[in-house]
């Protein structure tokens, strides 16, 4: 709990810095980092707490943004679709889930190019995507930062609650958990629901900031981002936030000379992932 409090204070400090600098550029970069931090945090909860490593968090993230852009009444449906998809994919088991979820994410990316609507006789969507009214940089930053703090605090509370213990029990040993009366499937759905809600909120923040959503939101880069971000900075609850900031800052810093710099970072992290996992596990022990 002490480590979590420290992490919370660190996040709060990271979030306050751009406000003190009062630079629109810094705030715009920080907003993207915060949105991806929420997405990574949703992934981290499902992986670390519930034991399900997904490579398809781009789906609830992207569907939520698309639903809001097309018709806000579709949001509930978008959430349920993501949840149903995760639940269905989990039937193949934990080991296969990482692969089946990644394949599903790629299929969504492909299909998203064909999402079109006819508006006043004009076809919109497709590769161009959909537009929505942006709420502005500062408002977006405040909204997404509040959401990040809210989810971080909620996850800390869940971890120290009865629900958190049940989720951990099912993660550690599903058979043993069932033998003491825990409904493992119900607990799995509850953990997926928490994670999908978080990713959905990240998707909404994304659209409200950019004012536009295109098939790129379902791209492999976005699908891999939470995994890469969580590997970069260790095995703590702060890690997905620090990792997301690193990816966004590297991407922005080299955008002039090397627009795809973040992909090099991805490649390096993925190649080094066995070593990184070993280091972080050792540091936790």
């Amino acid at each position, binding site marked *: 709990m002490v480590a979590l409090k420290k992490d919370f204070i660190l996040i709060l400090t990271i979030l306050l810095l751009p406000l003190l600098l009062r630079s629109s550029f810094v705030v715009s970069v920080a907003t993207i980092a915060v949105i991806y931090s929420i997405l990574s945090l949703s992934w981290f909860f499902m992986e670390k707490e519930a034991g399900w490593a997904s490579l398809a968090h781009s789906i609830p993230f992207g569907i939520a943004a698309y639903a809001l852009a097309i018709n806000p009444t579709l949001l509930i449906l978008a959430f349920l679709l993501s949840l149903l998809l995760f639940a269905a994919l989990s039937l193949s088991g934990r080991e296969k889930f990482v692969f089946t979820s990644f394949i599903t994410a790629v299929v969504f990316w492909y299909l998203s190019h064909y999402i079109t609507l006819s508006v006043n006789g004009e076809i919109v969507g497709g590769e161009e995507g959909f537009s929505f009214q942006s709420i502005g940089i500062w408002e977006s930053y405040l909204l997404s930062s509040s959401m990040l703090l809210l989810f971080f605090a909620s996850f800390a509370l869940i971890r120290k*609650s*009865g629900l958190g*213990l*049940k989720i*951990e*029990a099912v*993660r*550690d*040993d599903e*058979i*043993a*958990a*069932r*033998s*003491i*009366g*825990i*409904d*493992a499937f119900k607990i799995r759905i509850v953990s997926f629901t928490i994670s999908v809600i978080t990713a959905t909120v990240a998707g909404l923040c994304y659209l409200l900031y950019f004012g536009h959503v295109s098939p790129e939101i379902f791209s492999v880069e976005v699908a891999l981002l939470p995994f890469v971000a969580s590997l970069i900075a260790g095995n703590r609850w702060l890690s997905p936030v620090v990792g997301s900031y690193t990816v966004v800052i590297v991407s922005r810093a080299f955008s002039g000379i090397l627009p795809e710099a973040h992909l090099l970072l991805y490649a390096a992290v993925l190649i080094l992932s066995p070593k990184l996992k070993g280091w972080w596990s050792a540091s936790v022990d």
Partner: protein
Amino acid sequence: MLQLIDVSKVYNGNVVLRSINFKLESGFAGIYGPNGSGKSTMLKIIAGIERPDCGRVVFEGKDIAGKAPEEIAKMGISIVYQIPRPFKNMTVLENVATPFLLRKSYREAIESAMEICEFVGLRNKVNLKAGMLSQGELRLLEIGRALATQPKLMLLDEPFSGLDVENAKRVRRILRKIKREGVDAIVTAHRMKLLRDVVDISYEMRGGRIAEGR
């Protein structure tokens, strides 16, 4: 209380249980027999971990064969596995508190778990991660966690296996305490000697068949 009627189980063409008929009204029943005789499979079928190929498992008048393990646990049957299966990233206290959470608030669950830890002799280990415990302590933790489900019937699969003399004595002492509390149990072991001063009645299991023992 518990009755197995013509229960059979086949794994990959090997008959593990052959039309088992078994009845426990109350008390502690011991089942001894060599490795591979079907003792663990029988307990797993009662606990819902395995499904019988045929036959009935009747507990308190209800056929529970094929029911999910969580439903059976809620009916009052808990199992202690031969190879301990702790929630290794949780502390000892959290391991024991988890079953209580199905019926109690977090705070009450922790308080009740503390009592159980005291009961099984793990009071001074409550804040240790389960992964740090010795084999003997893990067995005590498993027993404590099973007790936390507040069972009517406990299934203890080879509770003495892999334990040194001292730890085996500790487990035996705790089993006697559980018996005094009025919980019924089925205890398995590979030798009759290990069960002698714990059980009320013993059965021998060999080649998937069961018979009343010495």
